[in-house]
Structure formats: C-alpha cells, structure tokens
C-alpha cells in the first residue's frame, strides 16, 4: 500500500532530480533530447554569464533584505498581540488573515496598489516612487510582497511559541522589576529560539526559491534588477528552450537550499533552551 507514494517519489522527485543533473552536464536539444556529454561546460557558461551573476546576486540580496524584515515585523506582531481581550483577538485575526488570500490574489492586489500613477500607495502617502521602474524600489516591493505572503503562517508559529512561555515565569520577572523589553529579551526570546530558528531557515529557503512575486510583479525588471535564480531558470527553460543551462541553474538552487537545510539540522541539534 506504499506503492503509490513510492511511485510518485520516484517519478516526480528522484528521476527528475537525476534528469536535471544529467541535463546540466549534457548538451540538450530544443526537443529536450540529450545530445552529448559536455562535462562542466554548462556550468562554466553559467558562471561567465552576466545574467546569471545578476540572478545570483539578486537572489542573495533579496534573501538578505527579506528575512530580517519579515522576522522583525512578524515577531513584533506576535509579541504585541500576545495579550488578552477582544482587541488583542481582533489584532491576531488581522495578522493571520493574509494567509487566507491566495498567493496570486495577494500579488495582484499589491500590483494594483503600488501602481505609481493610480495606485493607492503613492497617492495616499503623497510620493512619486516608481515601484516598477526604479531598481531599488522594485527590490523593496518584492520584500514587501514577501512579507504579506509569509506573515500569516509565520505569525501563527510565533504566537503558538509565545503562548507556551509559562505565565508564572513572566509574573516572577515582573515582580522582580523587569520591564517588557527585558522579559522579551531574557525570557521569551530564549524560550522561542527553536521556533525562531525554524522560521529563519524556512524563510531563507523560500527566499532563495522566490519566483511568483517576480513573475507577477516585476518580470525581473527593471534591467534585470529583480531577476532571481528560479525566474531565470524559468526563462531559460521555458522561454529560450535552453534546458541545459536551466538545469544547471536548478542544481545551483538545489545546492543553496540544501545548505540552508543542513544549517537548520545543525542548529536543531545544538539547541539548548528547548524545554
């Protein structure tokens, strides 16, 4: 009875992984046939390709901006709303509600809200930021979109972890004169460390795989300033029919995400505070 699961694992995970690797060391025809072994030539071409340099640095830059921004906002939301009462309840609902909106719906809403001329954002704040034509603004837009896509779920995880911090510990700290920030820094933060590590690593992994916000919001522009690895892989594989180069990018992406997961396993093993 494990046959269906095994078949799917082989057919849609292991075989494609091997095929991706094989394609990355062969010349591949437009029809998808492997023509001849070329060794590391595709990788050499890739690393000499300015477009790939842009993708790699944009992906890493996005990860570097997105992860801290998302963690700070989400953690702030969870800490601030970890109270009692109807207003706290309402705040919590608002914080996880973005999870109910599908990814492409959320991205389309943001795309229209951030339109420089008739979008509500520029008109409301009274600025004239070219969200889609200025490289820095476009990158900022991707980070903002990332936060809206991720906050619902990450907020729930942080909230669950914070609720598990024993109340009597907090009361003892309060009686001994600790302020809110000290309680967070020395009591809550160490106790939620495992959740924090989990969210940081999954965020890093997701950030390195980012593609839909690029596809829907910026299409990699302006001037490739938001072109990411998976987006370039999509372009090479499906727009230019360059399967070999696309597969080489896939292997690079795979190695990057694998490294993130190894770091998670390492940190999990070293965790001290959990329970």
């Amino acid at each position, binding site marked *: 009875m494990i046959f269906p699961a*095994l078949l799917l694992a082989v057919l*849609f995970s292991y075989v494609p992984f091997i095929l991706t690797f094989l394609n990355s060391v062969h010349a591949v025809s437009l029809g998808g046939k492997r023509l001849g072994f070329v060794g590391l030539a595709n990788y050499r071409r890739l690393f000499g390709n300015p477009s790939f340099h842009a993708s790699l640095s944009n992906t890493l830059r996005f990860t570097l901006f997105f992860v801290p921004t998302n963690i700070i906002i989400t953690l702030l939301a969870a800490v*601030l709303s970890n109270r009692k009462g109807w207003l706290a309840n309402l705040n919590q609902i608002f914080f996880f509600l973005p999870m109910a909106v599908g990814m*492409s719906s959320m991205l389309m809403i943001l795309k229209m809200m951030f339109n420089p001329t008739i979008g509500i954002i520029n008109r409301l704040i009274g600025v004239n930021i070219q969200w889609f034509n200025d490289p820095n603004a476009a990158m900022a837009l991707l980070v903002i979109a990332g936060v809206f896509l991720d906050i619902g779920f990450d907020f*729930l995880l942080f909230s669950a972890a914070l609720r598990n911090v024993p109340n009597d510990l907090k009361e003892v700290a309060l009686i001994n004169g600790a302020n809110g920030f000290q309680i967070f820094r020395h009591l809550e933060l160490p106790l939620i460390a495992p959740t924090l590590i989990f969210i940081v690593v999954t965020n890093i992994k997701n950030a390195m795989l980012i593609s839909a916000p690029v596809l829907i919001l910026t299409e990699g522009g302006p001037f490739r300033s938001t072109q990411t690895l998976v987006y370039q892989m999509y372009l090479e594989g499906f727009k230019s029919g360059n399967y070999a180069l696309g597969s080489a990018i896939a292997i690079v992406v795979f190695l990057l995400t694998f490294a993130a997961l190894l770091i998670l396993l390492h940190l999990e093993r070293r965790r001290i505070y959990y329970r």
Partner: protein
Amino acid sequence: MKTLRATLSTLLSLLIVFPIVYSISASFFQYTDFTALPARLFPSRLNIGNYVRAFSESFLARFLLNSLLTAIAGTLLRMAISILAAYTFSFFTFKGRNALFILIVATMLLPSDALIIANFMTIRALRLTDTYLGIIATSLLAPTHIFMLRQYFRMMSVEYREAAIIEGCSDSRFLSMLLMPMSKAVILTLAIHSFSTIFNDYLWPLLVTNKTSMRTVQVGLTMMGFSEQLDYGPQFAAITFLMTPILIVFIALHKPIIESVSIRFTGR
C-alpha cells in the same frame, strides 16, 4: 505602557490587513474613484458593476471550476495516498521499511520548484499537458503528511490492530471504522492544508496549461487583462469574490486554527 502596546499592535495589524480591506472596498469603486483627489479609500457609492463585468468579460467562472475540481480531486487523492502509506509504515513490519520511509520523506529535500523543467518534460512525454491530472500530478505526494500521520497512528499500539484482526476485523474496516475516526482532527487539518496548497499553486499550473479553458484561477487571475488596461474595478471584484469565502471560514474558525498550529508545531 499597556495602552502603547495595544495601540502599536492595532496600528500594525491595520497595516497588514489593509490590502484585503482595500481590495474589498475597491471592488465597488467606479472608474473615476481610482483617480479621485484626494485618494479615496471607500467607494463613492456601492455599485456591483465590477462583479458583473468580472464574470461576463472573462473566464472567471471556468477558472474557478478548474481550480475547485483540481483542488478537490488532488486533496482526496493526496489524503488517500498519505493515509495508506502512513498506515502501512505504522502497523506492518517488512524488510526495508525504514529505508523506504526515509526514501519517501527525503523528497522534502528536493524542492519541486527546482525540478520544474524535468517534471514538465515528464508530463509532456505522458501527454498530460492541459489536463487536470497534469495539473495535480506533481503535488499528489505529501511527505510531510505521511510523516505526521505516521507519528499520529503510532500513538495507537500495534496490539490494537492485532486484537481487531483476531476478532475478525479486516484491515480496511480497521482503517476506516477505527483509525480514521480516531484521527479525524489531524486528517481534517492536513486536508485543509492540502486543499489550500493545491488551490493556491501558481508556477506549476502556469507551465502545464496553455489553453485558456484549462487555466486555474490563480493563473487566470493574472491574465484577465483588466489590470493591464488600468481597469482595476473588475480585477478587484474577481479577487474579492475569490477570497471572501475563505476569509469567512478563517474568521469563523480562528480559534481552532490558532490552536491547531500550536499542537502541530510545538507538540503540546
């Protein structure tokens, strides 16, 4: 201090919920409301014209049908495959059991987004592009579900099943009459998760569908053409129409949703 915290919390939560509220509001805007000065947050008057146009001038209904069919069929298949595998791994001993379990769970390490080119070639070779099966094929295996269900099933001892079998109960009866009702909560949580994952998938359905009539709603939404013509009303109406049922479910079930996460991820 308390008031400051409540105020900050409320302000931040309003900022986070703003795109949702604005989308609902803007779905009733008239064309001129988008360009009005000063910028409008609420419609000048309620009009449902945008909703009418969203349905009559696009394939929204068809997109929605495709999405519902693939998400329902995909969820059912995914749950059936996961439950059967988890059941086998929990209650039977056979050669290579642990190795096979690891083989299945280790697929979590191979992100499907990095495999799209090879998977697309497989689906094309199987002539499954522009079919429902092609849309769901790559998401039918849920290693996380198998992992969690196995954890759950194993809380029930193997003797239970052996006793039931000796009493003349078949495996299928034991699974459907005893084990599944006992694990109702976790199965339901995973099914909801599956449904929203498949329903919200974007990149893969975009690649395997070419005909407009086979597009899922997440892909179709971005291709309706309204937003390119800066005709935002119908676009907001389509999005609002889609998200409203899910928003209602989330608001109504907010307590169990918050608690289910607490159980799943902190093991309490």
